[in-house]
């Protein structure tokens, strides 16, 4: 198992910011079908803030790097997604203050579980409500099983990403219950959820950057 240091986390988050910005229009298109079409914009604003905040930090710890994301989403974004992603990043940061072994599958299982909980607590969504919870909850369950089974981080994150995308796919048939999208009711069926999609992109980037960190640099 390759070594994962704080620098790798920062690199991963910078890579995530690029990836989200490159998916801006796609995420907007998904949100157009179900919500108000701005998800790619909100995510890009938050991710630009994350990058800006990282630029201002000198060799941040993993927790500090995630907190840079929490602050960006707290200060720059607003909307429903702002506070939710603020708490998602904050949950990761807090978890990584306690769990310092960045190469351990158990560390990331704890991170994912904290995120899944924060996502639900902040916005009040439960699995099946057609939100990003439908990506984080199965992803957390998958990486927890992998950790319990002694799998390495690479396998754990791969399983999490797979479960997240599976979750996105399942949102397609759901009807949203919360937020703007809920106004659409049945009209929203047949389209995957935008927030679940961006969550899965985030998990995928973690898999690519942390699961095989040598490949990334």
């Amino acid at each position, binding site marked *: 198992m390759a070594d994962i240091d704080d620098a790798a986390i920062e690199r991963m988050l910078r890579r995530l910011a690029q990836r989200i910005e490159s998916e801006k*229009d796609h995420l907007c298109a998904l949100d157009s079908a179900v919500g108000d079409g701005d998800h790619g914009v909100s995510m890009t604003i938050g991710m630009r803030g994350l990058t800006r905040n990282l630029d201002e930090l000198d060799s941040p710890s993993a927790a500090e790097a995630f907190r840079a994301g929490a602050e960006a989403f707290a200060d720059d974004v*607003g*909307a429903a997604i*702002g506070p939710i992603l603020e708490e998602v990043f904050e949950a990761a940061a807090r978890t990584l203050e306690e769990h310092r072994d960045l190469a351990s599958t158990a560390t990331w299982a704890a991170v994912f579980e904290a995120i899944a909980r924060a996502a639900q607590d902040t916005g009040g969504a439960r699995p099946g409500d057609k939100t990003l919870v439908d990506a984080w909850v199965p992803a957390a369950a998958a990486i927890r099983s992998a950790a319990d089974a002694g799998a390495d981080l690479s396998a754990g994150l791969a399983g999490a990403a797979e479960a997240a995308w599976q979750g996105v796919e399942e949102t397609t048939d759901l009807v949203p219950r919360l937020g703007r999208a809920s*106004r*659409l009711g049945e009209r929203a069926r047949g389209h995957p959820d935008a927030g679940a999609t961006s969550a899965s992109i985030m998990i995928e980037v973690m898999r690519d950057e942390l699961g095989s960190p040598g490949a990334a640099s």
Partner: protein
Amino acid sequence: MRPWNVVDMKKLINDPFDFVEESLEGFLLAHEDLVKRVGRRAIARIDAPIEGKVGVVIGGGSGHLPAFMGYVGRGGAAAAPIGNIFASPPAKPILEATLAANGGAGVVYSYGNYAGDVMNFDRAAARAKTEHGIDVETVLVTDDVASAPKDQVDRRRGIAGDFFVFKVLAAKAETMADLASVVATTRRANDYTRTVGVGLSACTVPAHGKPTFHLADDELEVGLGVHGEPGIRRSHIEPVDALVDEILGIILADKDYGGSDVAVLVNGLGATPYEELYIMYRRARQVLEGHGVGIRRSYVGEYITSLEMAGASITLMQLDEELHDLLAAPAKCPMFVQMGAARG
């Protein structure tokens, strides 16, 4: 290479991601005699906070001018946080606005009952209380009849009725009334207010670059929300008199204003000419007079827009003496000036 996507965008802008900041800067420069900046995305009236006065904070996403920052000023709100386009402001600028508005007598938040707004304003209210000991009360505006059925009024969103509710709220606070009375009067204003709109075309959020939804060249949607939220009925373009009849039919079925005094607002969403708003007003007046409704105040213009959307709405607010006088009270805000009845 141009740094921005021009396709489908007939806009007078620079980098779309600078839209909110640059328009805020221009606004502050144009109105430096009336308002000041109190945070990266928060403004307040020049003389805020006023000791002993209930602080009024209104807000929401950008793209709706004159709402929200255009209504900060004398006889208007004390402060407003500014969100990204069509997106609730974060808790931080809401808190900054709260601190700027706080004169020690409590603060009232009023906004349009969108999920994101509720989340962020509630977070700011909690922080205002725990970190600063400020009592915050919230009055959600829920005038959009098309946004939820009658038995779920608390799920309704706020649209053009914002203007009436905010005006009453701000004028009541100007009387130096206490927090409870300000809240009670504002809630009554909201309870008395109903709006139904009609959308004719979409608008384009600059950073996205594509219209947020699609209406065909000959289509309209009754009850369409100000961000493109789905309405009640889509159809071919119809003569506007028939639309006004339908809009008022929906409103009067939800709340019968017959026999009451009301204020009327015909609000344009941005691209609809004022002439068309007056054509709507003319028909509304005919219908309402036929229904025994007494029109005491009328507003026709652009009060809450959605960028360059075409469309309009009609709002009625029932008036008692207090609400009438508060609505009629003078105001000097960057985008709303009203002389008092004394000068009227």
